[in-house]
């Protein structure tokens, strides 16, 4: 082992040096900061450059140092669980209420009592005791070929199960959180048996096995492989506002609508939201940051690139989103998306929806 001892020592030294001195994106590591420097650590499942700009704005305004760890929501949850009270995380930002519920259910979030936030956010879009708060809205709806169908053909989700849609539907895999949350609300509205029959009928109407993302389903309509796709609104808007002429043509040859569950029940609206972790100790700072995200400036940066809808109707919507048809949000408490999530996957599995 003569050879290896110096090699080991050398490598350990190298790692020590690398870890200590070189944070590839941020040369001023947090240790270098002054002791009174306030730090806010975010765990985020979003990966948008505009989010980074937004965080920098807050840093510049307040002098707070924002640290971000981006990963998938499930991975962030395991990391948080491992770190426990020692976690550096103050806030978790995750797309989908189902994900936020999972953090709450694991006991990783704490209630933030804030009259200002409670007054600003409609009750549907925040957890009743303050475990999470909505930041932006997202709609799951139906994209279709307007030469074959009209918006009225998809007034309710049940319409996708009818026989005249045989061989026409394109949709992504069932394990995707958007499908799980939609199914969770179908279960809540119609019951498990009806939900499973609905999913089974959709599987029978599929033009191809579930594959790709939402954008791929819209493209498949334009290519003529199917004429109906279940997609989130912002994928369609992104195609419509894309720099590529090809993408614009895809959006132009399709239309988008937002079905209800039963007549007058309202539509499936999900959120991107934020939760305060149990490890956070500066709750005032957390509240200040959340309020900043809900400010006009915050809402604008959160939605301009993603094409989500701002949480508040009073905030201006990003370019392109005006093409989304008018809708009424369902009043199902969003925690249901999380509570029914495992059941949703089980029913999808039984229905043969891969």
């Amino acid at each position, binding site marked *: *082992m*003569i*050879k*290896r001892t110096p*090699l*080991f020592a050398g*490598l350990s030294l190298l*790692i*020590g040096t*690398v*870890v*200590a001195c*070189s*944070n*590839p*994106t*941020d040369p001023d590591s947090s240790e270098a900061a002054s002791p009174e420097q306030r730090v806010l650590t975010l765990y985020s499942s979003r*990966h*948008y450059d505009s989010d980074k700009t937004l965080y920098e704005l807050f840093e510049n305004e307040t002098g707070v140092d924002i640290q*971000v*760890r*981006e*990963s*998938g*929501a*499930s*991975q962030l*949850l*395991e*990391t948080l669980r*491992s*770190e*426990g009270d*020692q976690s550096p995380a103050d806030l978790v930002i995750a797309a989908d209420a189902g994900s936020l519920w999972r953090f709450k259910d694991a006991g990783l979030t704490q209630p933030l009592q804030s009259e200002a936030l409670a007054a600003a956010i409609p009750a549907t879009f925040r957890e009743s005791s303050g475990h999470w708060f909505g930041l932006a809205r997202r709609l799951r709806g139906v994209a279709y070929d307007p030469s074959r169908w009209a918006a009225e053909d998809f007034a309710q989700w049940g319409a996708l199960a009818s026989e005249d849609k045989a061989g026409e539907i394109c949709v*992504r895999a069932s*394990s995707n*959180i958007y499908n*799980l949350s939609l199914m969770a609300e179908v279960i809540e509205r119609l019951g498990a048996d009806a939900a499973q029959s609905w999913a089974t009928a959709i599987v029978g109407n599929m033009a*191809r*096995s579930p*594959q*790709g*993302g*939402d*954008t*791929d389903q819209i*493209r*498949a309509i334009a*290519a*003529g*492989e199917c004429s109906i796709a279940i997609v989130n609104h912002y*994928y369609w808007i992104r195609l419509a506002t894309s*720099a*590529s002429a090809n993408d614009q043509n*895809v959006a132009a040859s399709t239309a988008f609508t937002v079905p209800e569950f039963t007549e007058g029940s309202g539509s499936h609206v999900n959120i991107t939201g934020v939760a305060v972790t149990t490890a956070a100790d500066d709750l005032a700072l957390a509240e200040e940051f959340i309020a900043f995200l809900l400010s006009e400036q915050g809402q604008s940066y959160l939605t301009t690139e993603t094409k989500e809808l701002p949480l508040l109707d009073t905030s201006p919507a990003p370019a392109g989103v005006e093409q989304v048809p008018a809708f009424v949000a369902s009043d199902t408490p969003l925690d249901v998306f999380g509570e029914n*999530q*495992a059941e949703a*996957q089980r029913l999808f*599995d039984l229905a043969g929806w*891969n």
Partner: protein
Amino acid sequence: MRGVISWRLPSATALPALLVIFMVTLPVCTALFAGLTVGGGSTWDHIFTNRLLPYTATTIFVLVLSALLMLAFPVPAAWLVSRYEFPGRRFFSWALILPLAMPGYVMAYAWADLAASPGPLQSALRDATGWSARDYWFPNVSSAPGLAFVLASTLFPYVYITARTAFSMQTSTTLDAAKSLGANAWERFWRVGLPVAIPAICGGLCLALMEAAADYGAADFLGVQTLGVGIIRSWNSFGEPNTAARLALALIMIAGAFFFAAQYLQGRGGTQHTGSKWQTPKRGRLSARHSAIATLLCTLLLLICFFAPVSRLIWLSLETRASAADLVPLLRATLILSSLGTGFALIAAFVFTLAAKNDGGLRFGTRLAAAAGYAAPGAVLGLGAVYILRETGQALSASIAILLLLWIYVSRFTSAGVEPLNATLDRLPRNLDNAARSLGSGRLARIWRIDLPLLAPGTFAAALILFVEILKELPATLMLRPTGWDTLAVRAHAYASDERFAQAMLPSLLIVLAGLAPVLLLSWRLSHSERQP
């Protein structure tokens, strides 16, 4: 190979090996232990009753089909390249290794886009024929056979490299004898060349299949329900990482079956001729027709598995005018992590190889340990690391996160480093060691003065393979990297999971480019060593 397994107290040199076996297997064992001991609950009942069989059947189907693909085309290509002269032979002999630089998930992005109904191939077909998208059948990449094709196209170089090396090392005596006995070219390949090369080919194939078994990115993107996808699904949709770990056990058992099959085949395969007077045979000439077929085979292989998908990536990056400015920190993080990971994995591979050299039991044990890590999906190893962290009460600080990540790299990839080292060792004459021993050299002195210098060529190959593998690693890096340490793979995945493929293309392309340099070096090195045996 020495198949005798002897049991005795570990010697001084065996201790480091046992320690490294412990290190390499701890993450996977922790995850499996947690999976088996913590109750599976209703989720496990559901998966066991409804999903386990389909997941397993799909996984085995994909693995078998990709194995057939990797044998059917790359092995004949390796034979032709090492035995015959034909137009482009020199180019093909090294270029056929290039697909190794493509991660499976990037190959999946590229081919799913190329072959989808809105993609360029089908669009061209519709334009040419006037058909609509439902008027014709077209191969679907988003299917189990499609996944097998994608995995085979990125992993076949493992089979190609080992096959080519084995064919090049064959002495002319046996082949000449076969020729003089009237065997035609086909019979010389099928009845003489191939059987002798089977152990080497099996080693390469085993490595490729274990890598394929651990795939998550490509299968998930293509929507194929393999065990790898089931593992992540039970974690993401059901929120039960323990169920995920249980499914990982099924995956590791499948990979274990491949491992033992390869061991068996390697053990009973033909032996290499090791006489001192062996010479590499001159390459034969092919008729014009056969030359054309050989060139066509190699061209198609390279076009389908490398140039077409890479061109598509370049096209998409250019079309969207993606900016490369903020990719520099990613590249830096990627290179630092890959280099450090390579260093540690190489040390582990050295310890394994040297300890196994004279000890059948250790040889088996080290190979099994390396294989267990290699077959485990990165996400499961990451989970094991997080459990270990939880048990020891440590916080995931930046330095601990990097150490954990490097540990997982070692656990996952040591196998890829052990194979080239073993291949080098197998070729060395035993009597060197005996001669040194008779001259009174101690064991450590023999390692220092004989083994390490002789292993140098294998070390180089091992380091390059490790570097490329770690460069492409996604799930564990995604889980464990500290803030500010995003790698190219992490960024490409982040964009792709947000369905921003245009933006995902540039980091994907950079992964391929960063992997290309080591792959080219490896290729040059292999050709070089074959010319000067």
